[in-house]
Structures are given as structure tokens and as C-alpha cells.
């Protein structure tokens, strides 16, 4: 079940946002979603969080409160720390305040500017709930591959990883996905042990089997679904062919 929580210090707006969500629920009666809390008091959210640590909760948070301009942010950080399975959407007038930083720290889904007017706000709230219901609930955390850059821990869905590549002269690894290329420090052996579904085709390459299109044993090459071809170690080619025939 997906729980929804709203926190907004202006009571009129709070009622309005709650109304929007009720409209959404009305239109999607089969969806397993519940608006569990709509409040102007951040402490209530903390209390709720303490009792529902493992639930999947979507938060709509205002950033500024009357007594502090960053209280919403602090709240979001607390949520992030205590529950990995939380999604946060900010509703704020802070259009110029550090969106990249927020996204990096809090991994929020979206950032709704109040300045866009009621219609837009409603639409964006709907879109965000849609996005979450499209993802399958309990599987979410299991499918993630976690890696560390600097002090931050990032996660990526294993399904999206095409292959890992190791640098020859340092302990750097590149994750190749269809839309990103990410470097971090680790060793391929380490990663290989975490990901049994990936195949080590070469000393420096670890490939997701789902993306293998064909194997060219004459040239010792593997061709991926995105058109990239990668070299295969000679002694692995026979084994590799067998594995893929079996699939």
C-alpha cells in the first residue's frame, strides 16, 4: 500500500492539496493508496514515521514554515535518514533555491512551484502519484544496486545497468546504462559477487545478460541490444555461448 502525507503550514492550501489528492483517489478507486495524514505540524509527521518505518510513503512537503525557512528541508532529511522507502515531493515557492542540491540529497520525485498556479499544482501532484503507482511496491529496494561516490550512497535499479567496465590503471568502475555513465571506486570482483545475473566476459567487463543480443565467436565479440559491441576473453567464449543458448 502507498501512504500519502501532506505537510503545509498554510491551512487553506493544506485543505486544497488534500482535496486534490482525494480527487485523485476518487478517480483511481482500485489503486491501493491512502491519504493518511494532512497536517501543518512537522512533528506529527515524525511521530507517524516512527510507527510506520517500513511502509512506502509519499510525502508532499512545503519547505518554508512560519518559524523557519528550512524546516521543510530538515524534515525531509530526517525522513530520508529514517526510511529508505520514502518519496518526497516539495511544494514550494522557492523556485530559485538549490533544486540540484535537494535532488542529490533527498532524491525527491519532483519539485512543484507554487508560482505556477493551482491548475499546474494539481496536475503535478497527480503525475507524481501516477509515477509511483507505476513502480511495483515491495520489489523496489531489492532490485537496487548501491554504490558510493564521495560521502553519498546512490542506488540504481539493476535492470537498468547494461554493463560495468573497470579502468585498467586504477580502481575505478564505470556503470553503463542506456541513459547514464557513472564512475565510482570499487573492484569488478567485488561487484561480480553481488550480481549473480551478470556475466564476466572479460577481465574488465561485467555484462547484464538481459542486454546481450548476440555473440560473435569468430571475432570474440559480444553485441548488446543498444548496438555496442564488447570484446570477450578467448577462454570464456565457449562457456558464454552455452550459457546463452540455455537462456
Amino acid at each position, binding site marked *: 500500500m502507498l501512504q500519502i502525507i501532506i505537510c503545509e503550514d498554510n491551512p487553506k492550501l493544506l485543505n*486544497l492539496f488534500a482535496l486534490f489528492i482525494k480527487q485523485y483517489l476518487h478517480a483511481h478507486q482500485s489503486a491501493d493508496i491512502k491519504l493518511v495524514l494532512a497536517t501543518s505540524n512537522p512533528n506529527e509527521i515524525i511521530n507517524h514515521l516512527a510507527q510506520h518505518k517500513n511502509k512506502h510513503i509519499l510525502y508532499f512537503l512545503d519547505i518554508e514554515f512560519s518559524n523557519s525557512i528550512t524546516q521543510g528541508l530538515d524534515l525531509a532529511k530526517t525522513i530520508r535518514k529514517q526510511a529508505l522507502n520514502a518519496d518526497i515531493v516539495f511544494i514550494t515557492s522557492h523556485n*530559485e533555491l538549490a533544486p*540540484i542540491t535537494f535532488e542529490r540529497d533527498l532524491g525527491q520525485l519532483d519539485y512543484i512551484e507554487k508560482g505556477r498556479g*493551482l491548475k499546474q499544482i494539481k496536475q503535478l501532484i497527480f503525475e507524481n502519484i501516477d509515477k509511483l503507482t507505476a513502480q511495483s511496491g515491495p520489489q523496489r529496494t531489492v532490485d537496487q544496486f548501491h554504490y558510493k*561516490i564521495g560521502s553519498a550512497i546512490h542506488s540504481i535499479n539493476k535492470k537498468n545497468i547494461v554493463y560495468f567496465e573497470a579502468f585498467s590503471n586504477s580502481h575505478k568502475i564505470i556503470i553503463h546504462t542506456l541513459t547514464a555513465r557513472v564512475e565510482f571506486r570499487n573492484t569488478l570482483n567485488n561487484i561480480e559477487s553481488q550480481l549473480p545475473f551478470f556475466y564476466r566476459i572479460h577481465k574488465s567487463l561485467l555484462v547484464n545478460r538481459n542486454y546481450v543480443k548476440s555473440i560473435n565467436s569468430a571475432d570474440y565479440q559480444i553485441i548488446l541490444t543498444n548496438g555496442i559491441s564488447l570484446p570477450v576473453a578467448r577462454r570464456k567464449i565457449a562457456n558464454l555461448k552455452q550459457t546463452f543458448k540455455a537462456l
Partner: protein
Amino acid sequence: MVTVPQYIGQITDLFSLISFLVIILIIEPKLRGQYNIAIGLISIVGISFIDTIYNMASIPLLAILYFFLLQKNQLTTFKWIIDFIIALLFTFITAQLASNLTIKILRLQLGKIDRQLLHIVILDLVFTIVLTTVLLIVRYFIMKLLDKIDIEQSFAAAIFGYNAVALIIFLTLADAVTRSIGQVSDLMPLFLGIFGILVFITLFVTILLYSQKIKALQLSHKKERTKDNTLYIKELEKKYQEARKAKHDYKNTLLTLQVIAKNSKNDTLYTNVSNLLQSDTNSDDNDSKNLALQKIDDALINGVISQKLTEAQDANIKTTLEITKEIPELGKINIIITRILGILMDNAIEAASDSKEKLISVAVINEAPAIEFIIRNTVAQNTDINIDQIFEEGYSSKGSSRGLGLSTVQDLISHYNNMLISVKYTDTFTAILTLEDII
């Protein structure tokens, strides 16, 4: 040289020449080498021989040996000359003191030395060795001391050099005076020598104290300036936050007004408020950007970011800059980072200017032990970017100029284990440069 019969003078001169060679090789490791040692030994034999014919020829010959025959290797000219002067000074002091002490101890009288020749030679040799060692040890400790108080190397060398020159002139004069006065002179060179060394030490200490004082003054001045700056920025930030808070309140009020208008079905009011909300000006954008830039202490990185953001604005691109925490000076690595940021920003500007939204967002995030530089830009719709090949040489989404830049980035980064780059392309393009292990 002290006035003793000539052949004894020659023997002491030979000791001096050898001690010069030893000293120069010890104080300057760069001069060590088979060639220099061989040439040095051969020349010493040659110079001693010439010295027997023309007395006092050894000093100019020594200069010729040093400056023309020995290999200079990678020494700077300045250091090369200073080394010579110091070695010469040491040799000079040793020779003077050794012969004086020998004469004193054996109570030699000029003209009656033949019987004690062996004694003289041995004693002179011993004194030469002992005194050279003492001088070298003293020099070693002075160098150690210099290292510890972190005085600039070339400055220290200069002080040493100038003082050594002064001392050599002083001692030469002393020697000349002694010779011209004649037999009264037994103790004179010794006293003058000690006096000279005392002058050297006094001068040296004075200069050291001054240099320390200057350094302390500079430091306190810098501290004060930083403090003033920080206070000023804090004040500005406070004002800026206040302004933003006011803006926030007014936006909330407008939005509430819109709710009321909607509830009371007042369409004119609803549209008007809607327009008001949208007419939100970005007049405070520049202030916030300048404020953010102040937080980058590293001049090079500050420079490249501010310049490229201005470039982007000139190309009608909207820019935002987020910096959460002060970015300290990063040392020498800032040159590499500046180059990488320059290339990434150029790419971002090129891509954003082709896009409809024309927006570049930059964030610098300092979160120990890493600093992240994030550059995000909008991209023209339907641009096909193959993210997998983007760093390969010659790759470009259009034209050939772009791919070269990113392959340079890859090349630069591959030399540093603690530098990482990531790129993402969904509907916008994001490049993240991470610098890990910042101390």
C-alpha cells in the same frame, strides 16, 4: 696563507683543495658523479703542481675548475654560485684555523721548522679534517633549523650567500692585514676569524627574526581580511534571506487569494491573480549568484564558473548556481579541475543554446570528504546522444568539435584516482565531476 716556508704552504694548500672538493660534493648532491669526482681529483693534482711554480695561483684555478670543468647538472646558476662561495668560505676558514692552530701548538718559530715537518703535516691534516667536519655539521643544523621554521629556500640561500661573501672579504682583508703587519700577527687572524663568524651569526639571526615577523604580520592581516569578508557575506545573506521570506509570504498570500477567487467563482479575480503569480520576476537571481560565488575561495575555480556563467547569460541562457558550503582552496589540482569545468561548461552552453528552454544549472556541493561539481543543461528535443561513446575521441552529437573536449576530460581524469565523472541524459543532460578524499 700563513707565512711558513713554501713547501709546507704547498702541503697545506693541497689539504685545502681536497677539503674544498669534499665540501662541495657534500653540500651539493647534484654535483656528485663519477665525472666530477675524477675531474676534481685530476685537477687538484694539476693545481698543486702549478701552485708550486706560481704561489697563490690555486684560488683562481679553483674557480676555473669549478665553473668551467665540473658539470653543472641541473643546478640553477644562482645556487651554483652560492655553493661555490660557501665551499670556498669553509675551505678558507679551515685552512686558516688549521695552520694557525698548528703553529700555535708546536710553538713554531719561522725559519726553524725543518725538524718538525712530519708533525706539522699530520697536525695540519687532522685540524683540516676536524674543522671541516665541524663546519659541515653546523651547516647541517642550520639547514635543519631553516627547514623547521619554513623559510623560503631561495631566500635562505640568498642570506647564506651574501653573508658568506661578506665573511670571505673580511677574512681575506684580515689575512692581508696580518701579512703586511708581519710578526705581531700571531693571534690576529684567529680573533678576526672568530669576530667574522660572530658577525655572520648575528646578521643571520636578525634576518631570520625579521622574516618571521613579516610572515606573522601577513598572516594576521589575511586573517582579519577573511573575517571582514565573512561578516560582510553573512550580513548580505541575512538580508537576502529576509527578502526571500517576504517574497514567499506574498506568494502564499496570492495563492490563497486564488483559492478564494476560485471558491467564490470570481473568474476575473482568478485570472488576474494567476497572471500576478506568473509575472514573478527573477530580479534577485543575480544577487543570489554573486553571493554563491563568494563561497568559492579557490580563485581559479571561482573564475572559470563565473566567466562561463556570464558567457551563458550573454548567449541568452538562463543560469542558476547553487553552493551550499564554502569551497576551500584546492591546491595545485585546481588547474585540472578548471580545465575540466571549462570544457563541461562549454559543452553545456553549446547544447543549451540549441534548446528551447535554454537553462544551465550549476551546483557545487562540498560534503566531506568530497566535492561535487554538477552541471545540468537543457538539450534540444530529439537530440540523439549515445552516452556510451560520448567520451571517445572523435565522438560528437553534432560536428567534430564537441567529442574532442570530452575525450580530453577523460584523459585528464584518468590520471587521478580520486577524480570521478558521471554523465546522465534523460530530458536534460547532467555532468557530475566528483573530487574525493579532500582533506
